[in-house]
């Protein structure tokens, strides 16, 4: 088991968005978290990435383990550097005052000096040719979809082996959304472990191996994608009939 969240309870001040949730991700899997707005999906990812308050909550009970060891005391930059997990955050959060290239370069901050990154940049530009065209441009001048590509590319440049994505297809045209999901599938086939949050539950479940349904801070259902796709409750609540 690569990552396991065990009976996790967290709080923002007095608000408790997670009431003891448990789920896990195995190496090489694509797992998806689905749930309505405010269910606690983003909160779960921020907790896993060990972000600090006020953006992330305080853990009050339970544990988060990476390869069986608690990471509650790990700093968010060490999550990236040592555990090789990278988050594509909700709302992109690209650095608009940096160029596209600088955004990608900054993501290599904690990687070994002298590592040959040429091929990796090339891979990002193969995935998203638009970024290559705009690499010297200040990234706040990119379109929303292009910014989303940059957010994904940037996460990959950290050298991660475990990618966490929070609604990465938000704002992408249908064509690009499709491309992105194909990219994720290919990355997974090359060995990347993926934890995906996606508004479009059907799309997410068709990509993922397994999934969890989150409902107001609790796990309401879990299973393989086929099981969840066939589950009448899930169908009714998240798959539009």
């Amino acid at each position, binding site marked *: 088991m690569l990552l396991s969240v065990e009976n996790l309870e967290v709080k923002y001040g007095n608000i408790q968005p997670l009431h003891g949730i448990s789920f896990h991700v195995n190496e090489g899997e694509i797992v998806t978290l689905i749930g309505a707005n405010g269910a606690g999906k983003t909160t779960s990812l921020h907790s896993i*990435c060990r*972000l*600090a*308050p*006020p*953006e992330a909550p305080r853990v009050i009970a339970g544990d988060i383990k990476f390869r069986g060891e608690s990471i509650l005391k790990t*700093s*968010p*930059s*060490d999550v*990236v*550097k040592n555990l090789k997990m*990278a*988050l594509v*955050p909700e709302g992109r*959060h*690209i*650095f*608009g*005052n*940096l160029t596209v290239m*600088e955004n990608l*370069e*900054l*993501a*290599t*901050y*904690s*990687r070994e000096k002298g590592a040959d990154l040429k091929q990796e940049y090339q891979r990002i530009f193969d995935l998203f040719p638009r970024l290559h065209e705009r690499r010297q441009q200040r990234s*706040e001048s990119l379109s929303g979809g292009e910014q989303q590509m940059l957010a994904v590319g*940037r*996460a990959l440049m*950290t050298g991660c082996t475990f990618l966490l994505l929070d609604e990465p297809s938000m704002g992408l045209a249908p064509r690009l959304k499709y491309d992105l999901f194909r990219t994720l599938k290919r990355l997974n086939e090359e060995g990347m472990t993926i934890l995906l949050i996606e508004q479009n539950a059907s799309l997410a479940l068709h990509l993922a191996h397994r999934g969890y349904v989150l409902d107001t801070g609790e796990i309401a259902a879990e299973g393989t994608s086929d099981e969840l796709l066939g589950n009448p409750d899930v169908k009714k609540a998240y798959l539009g009939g």
Partner: protein
Amino acid sequence: MLVAIFQNIINALQWGSFYALIALGYTLVYGVLTLINFAHGDIFMVGAYIAFFVATFFLTTVGVPGWVALALTIPLTMILTSMVGVALERVAYRPLRRKGANRLYVVITALMCGLILQNANLALLGASRKAFPSMITEHVYNVGGVIFTDLKIAVIVTTILSFFALQKIVTKTKVGMAMRAISYDKFAVPLMGVPIDNIIVVTFVLGSGMAGLAGILFAMSYPILDPYMGALIGWKAFIAAVVGGIGDIRGAFLGGFLLGAVEIMVVAFFPSTFRDLIAFTVLLVILAFRPTGLFGVAKTTKI
């Protein structure tokens, strides 16, 4: 007439250098943290005193020749002054940042840190002024009636070189990118594997290191030190940084020289008691026309 103009330009550049070096520290910290480090002028003062002790130590206790003492005093003073800046960050600013304290409390804390540095100095060393030891003999040059010293030229050249070095760090290195990234979106910086606190420490090291450099250069040029020497010059440098567009290092650099120029011009035409009055008025007028400063962009990005 021409001679008087050149004479004034050299003097303006020398004073502008002091303002610029200090203003760079203000703007760097503000650019990264949107924190106005009001203790910065007093860090400059501490820098001058550190230079005093280090120089005295090498000259009298160790007894090395003056130029050796100078060569050792400059880096040591910069390092020790950086440590003072970093200590302030650790003890005073970081805890507030962790708790997400309101801006007002942070500003008050910065002001208090400045007062503590002044008064700690007063308590430890007494109110008497200190005479800065002379490490090198200044040479006076006279080119067609324009009189200047090698020290003045060294001050100006050092400031310009420091600016370009800093510019290079901020625009070309990954640490510089991280500094700019923090100013834009602090949330996402750790997601890039960048430890924010380390970058903030580097910011304080650079800013305070330059204040230390300003401290030595100032003490060599005007070799009388007192605990309040950082107060007025610190305010002026802060204003220079704001007029340049706080958060932008080119703005701080040019703002410093602009203030130097305005002051010297005022003194050239008016009684010297008018200097600060007219200089501040001019800056006020500039701000009235460009409230974001010369280089400032309204609200978007810093450094």
